[in-house]
């Protein structure tokens, strides 16, 4: 199966890294999140409702919509924080990238381990700049807000294309992938979907 790959590039100031990453990651996850599946008898199921919440950025003139889930927000923030710390400590000239990967976990029989098949990867490349004065910071605040808006539009555009189906026998309701176990009752481990965030190279 071919994995769909999307790359987003942003140029931000150091204090804007968190919010820029959160905005993009939450926007992606909003489109890839579904309600909780409740399986009933006779193979029927119902799907829960996804709530949304607006989040204002403090250092960027931007507001993004995220899934109304504190646990999800916590996980994303933790990953972004680790990325930011790695970026600051790596000694690099302020460039790095973070990836959000949607994969399907295929359980294999013993002695083979489970197979993770990514079907979509979002890579966000970050370029950190240093600004000299407050005026430049104010300009950067507005510019980054506009750029993030363009990136959100870039995130939305691929949603028009149908999701890639891993195998024909998989029911279509398994896509898009489910984030974290709390959104999905794993009655059938073979079809479990998962997401992971990977901090890739800091260069």
């Amino acid at each position: 199966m071919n994995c769909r790959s999307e790359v987003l590039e942003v140029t931000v100031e150091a204090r804007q890294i968190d919010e820029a990453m959160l905005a993009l990651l939450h926007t992606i996850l909003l489109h890839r999140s579904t309600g909780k599946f409740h399986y009933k008898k006779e193979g029927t199921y119902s799907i829960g409702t996804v709530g949304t919440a607006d989040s204002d950025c403090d250092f960027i003139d931007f507001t993004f919509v995220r899934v109304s889930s504190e646990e999800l927000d916590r996980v994303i923030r933790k990953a972004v924080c680790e990325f930011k710390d790695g970026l600051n400590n790596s000694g690099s000239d302020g460039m790095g990238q973070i990836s959000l990967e949607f994969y399907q976990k295929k359980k294999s029989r013993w002695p083979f381990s489970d197979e993770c098949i990514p079907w979509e990867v979002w890579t966000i490349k970050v370029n950190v700049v240093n600004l000299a004065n407050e005026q430049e910071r104010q300009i950067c605040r507005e510019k980054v807000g506009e750029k993030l808006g363009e990136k959100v539009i870039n995130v939305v555009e691929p949603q028009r294309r149908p999701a890639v189906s891993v195998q024909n026998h998989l029911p279509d309701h398994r896509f898009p992938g489910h984030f974290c176990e709390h959104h999905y009752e794993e009655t059938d481990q073979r079809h479990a979907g998962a997401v992971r965030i990977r901090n890739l190279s800091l260069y």
Partner: protein
Amino acid sequence: MDSDLSPQDKKDLDKFIKFFALKVKMEMFVLLPTVRHFCVPSDFIAVIVYEPLLWLQTVQVIVQARLGEKICTRSSSSPTGSDWFNLAIKDIPEVSHEAKKALAGQLPGIGRSMCVEISLKTSEGDSMELETWCLEMNEKCDKDIKVSYTVYNRLSVLLKSLMAITRVTPAYKLSRKQGHDYVILYRIYFGEVQLSGLGEGFQTVRVGVVGTPVGTVTLSCAYRTNLAFMSSRQFDRSAPILGIIVDHFVDPPCSSQRPAVLGQPCNYRAPDEEDGGAFAGVQDSQEVCTTSFSTSPPSQCVCTLSPSPSKMSKPLPLDSLQLPLAPGLVAHNMCSSRVSYQPGALPGAAEVHPTAANAAQVLHAGKEGGVGVVPCQPHGAETHLTGEPPLNTPGSSGDDEGLSRSAEERSVSPSDPVEYLNAFTRKVGAFVNKPSTQITAANLDLPFAAFAARGLDTEGSDPMVQPPESPPSQSPLQASLHSQGSEGSGPQDDFVMVDFRPAFSKDDLLPMDLGTFYREFQNPPQLTSLSLHISSQSMADDLDSLPEKLRVYEKNIDEFDAFVDMLQ
């Protein structure tokens, strides 16, 4: 066919349609999640049910994104009957009502696009289209697609994309800042999308495309990029009386002629029992006091408060603004500075933001001479706001404390306006060079009294009548502007410009740059009319004649009222 039906039959037909739609909706809800036992009506009917729901949910998302507030809804593990497309979207009854009204009982379909227009309207009545969201369907069908889940899921993703995009367009930031100066309106219409009002260079963004067995649904947005506001009046305003500036919070007199195409305001209020109905939010918006206090000097603007003679059942809320007035002043100003408007009841028209009107406050001078704050009377009652201008502070525009009194004046009995006026001491503006020693900094409530110049002259050196002498200049123009009657001390610079390099300044006509020009004409010569012997005489005459004038005006109050009514 509709024309042959009686009103009762039409009502019955509407009820039947709603019942049938609800029945199908319930069946779809129950049977939708079923994968193997999917025995609902055909996919065609399913799409027929989804389409109007999609239309309504799209309108809700767009309008709620322009309310000016952060939206937050809770996730739920168990779906409810109202959570369509697995999304928690709040349902605002007024918005649904407007959408259904625009639908006019017909189902949207191929060639019949639904458009939601978002516009901005200022408190002065100017409006500007910001963006237009268009949901349309074409004939390109995807017959192989499963409506049961695939289309439903993709429509859900479409709505999520809509939520994300609505926070990205420029109108979102404007809607978050709406308030006293402007409000955001929405309008729903069907048919061809109208983009001419978006100005030049508008941008378009496609939110999403979903194929269905009956057609392809496309949701897109066209938004204005040039937000420079063009002040194009949509109506003619009546010329102000004697050139008085009309307060910009006052509705124009021709408001009743304003077309109703401006739309509904994007300011949702939860239905409340006190508001008296599901559409109280919309109805109240049409019954708002139209005037408020002006920040300009009272002599330049007088506002009359006249709520629309409609169904207001409670007095309008008052702002906490306290406008101090000299007690005992009669609550009628000179005829020349009085403007009166009365708003018309506009069917479905836009409103000034309620908080702008809430800034209105009424002061009513009682017969006893006291001044009190009273709620404005409904049903056509009028009260008048007046105030005496600060007598020597033309620079203190917008200063509501311009009529505040010094410590000496407070000892005067408030019951006698004449004595009060005689005891009224002239006040000096904050940025006047040489205040008179009769008015010391300790007595005045000068904002920057501590920075007032020291070593004031003792006699007759009121800078309002005797400004400092202009500095000597080598410019050939200076001689023609210099007045022979100018008196006063030498030039006093309030500040020193070390290096003045104004941007884009280029003067090819005169052999000087802008900085030199500014320095030379920083202290202009004294005007003849402001010379001491002339101005003091005229001012004294004015003060002496003021009580008499007030008596005359009070005597003729009925004529003034009749004049105001005539204007209305």
